[in-house]
């Protein structure tokens, strides 16, 4: 087998949504910030969604790397398709809504964390991870959160 054949293909959950794009490291969410009204939007947008804002002068910015858990749940059941996981391999995984210092809340799964380890008010770090290998055999790269 040649080297090219063994190389694992990767695909991002979306372009320009988080940085860096290499999995396995701490990272940041990229959101759209309206310079006119100050509000943030995620996924990033071509415009400001605030109906009170007339200027709508937007830029993409990296959010703070850490935030506070505003609320949590967990996927006790294995997630349905297109998520790829064998039913027997699934372990209940926490899902968190994280309040970033900028005021925007970002939702994601926790990495390497049991449901009982999560609580409202805890600090978490944005991380870039391979979520799973998709049906096409590509590693899907997205964001998660980890305990600080």
């Amino acid at each position: 087998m040649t080297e090219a054949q063994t190389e694992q293909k990767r695909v991002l959950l979306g372009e320009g949504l988080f940085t860096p794009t290499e999995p396995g490291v701490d990272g940041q969410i990229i959101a759209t910030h309206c310079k006119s009204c100050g509000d943030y939007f995620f996924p990033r947008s071509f415009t400001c969604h605030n109906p009170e804002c007339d200027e709508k002068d937007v830029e993409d910015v990296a959010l703070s790397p850490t935030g506070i858990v505003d609320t949590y749940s967990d996927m006790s059941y294995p997630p349905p398709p297109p998520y790829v996981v064998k039913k027997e391999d699934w372990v209940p995984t926490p899902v968190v809504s994280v309040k970033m210092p900028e005021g925007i809340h970002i939702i994601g799964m926790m990495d390497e964390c049991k449901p009982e380890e999560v609580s409202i008010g805890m600090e978490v770090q944005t991380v870039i991870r391979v979520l799973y290998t998709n049906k096409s055999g590509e590693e899907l790269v997205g964001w998660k959160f980890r305990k600080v």
Partner: protein
Amino acid sequence: MDDIAIIGVGLHPWGKFPEKFWTNMASDAIYMALKDAGITWKDIQIVVSGSQNWGGRKGIYAGSYIDEVMGYTGVPTMNINNACATGGTCIAVAAAMVASGQADIVLAVAADKSAKGFFPFLPPYHEEPVPADDTMRWLMGLPNPVYWALECRKKMEKYGITDDHLAMVKVATSKHGAINPAARYKKEFTREEVLASPMVCNPLRLFEICATSDGAGAVILCNAKKAKQFTSKPVHIVGSGLGSPLYGDPTTRIPVLGFEPKEGMPIISESWVAARSAFKDAGMGPEDIDFVEVPDNSSWHYFQYLETMGFFEEGTAHLALERGETMIGGKLPVCPSGGFSSFGEATMAQGFAQVYEMVLQLRGECGQRQVQGAKVGMSEVYGMAGNNAALILKN
């Protein structure tokens, strides 16, 4: 709104009907409603139909295919999709058509066949340059109930709501459903049985989340001045309201992945908007309502809708449930039909199940589960992405 009457209702049973196509379920509901009103298909002047997510191209134009099986008569036909609030929306739009004088007799109808378990992912045909949150959340493994669970956990911690309270919602709704011949699940659940059901998305357990279902319903609306010639028991639509969210709504709404809550904004603001719009339309307030059908998609919904609609202060609906106030015979019977917990969610059609129950209650035809002296009923139906339809009916 005070000059619209419901003269006929029909409801296809809820359940799984693999042998039956949804056009057939819709036509069954329509024939039942026509019979109830004492009219024929040819008397219908406008069709307002729910369009559906799971029926492919045919489902998008559901009303057009319902016209086909009923027999084309050339009537204006609308296909409406407001997610799971579609049923309520169809009836509200049909009411507006009658109120505006566009027609005297209007049919609202919807049928749905939903998948088992979690609703399936519907991939977009054209993806956006930045993938939609509703695409990414599926890829990330976040189905609908996890959104409800996130809100539920926050509410529990804030107001001291317990797992017992969540279970008691199912106990309460199943008690009503058990005595409703139209309900799909007629079993009364105990708190222990609910608490023993598997966790789906913590803190929500399997029996605290409504099932998915097939179902269909039809409602025939008429100019109230002409209603007497069809029925001796017209039920009037006195208020209706549709809602979309307010900017800065703090709810973890399906399918958001990022949102910025603003101070003072109501949770599920689309419900807040629709309820207030319906109350204003009717010249009424929560105190005038004798019973309510809320969208009890989960135990969280039951509490949150009762509060957001204005029946209880924020963070107190679980105490009212504890006191038995939300049972038939209590101060404000909630979901006397048994709710979605006893029917299952036939997404586009479920608003019709609520209105079917309200009409039977207001005609005094509910037997064992009759809300004594019921004069005014209200319903709200919840749809993803910030859809809501509220209706107030009076006998």
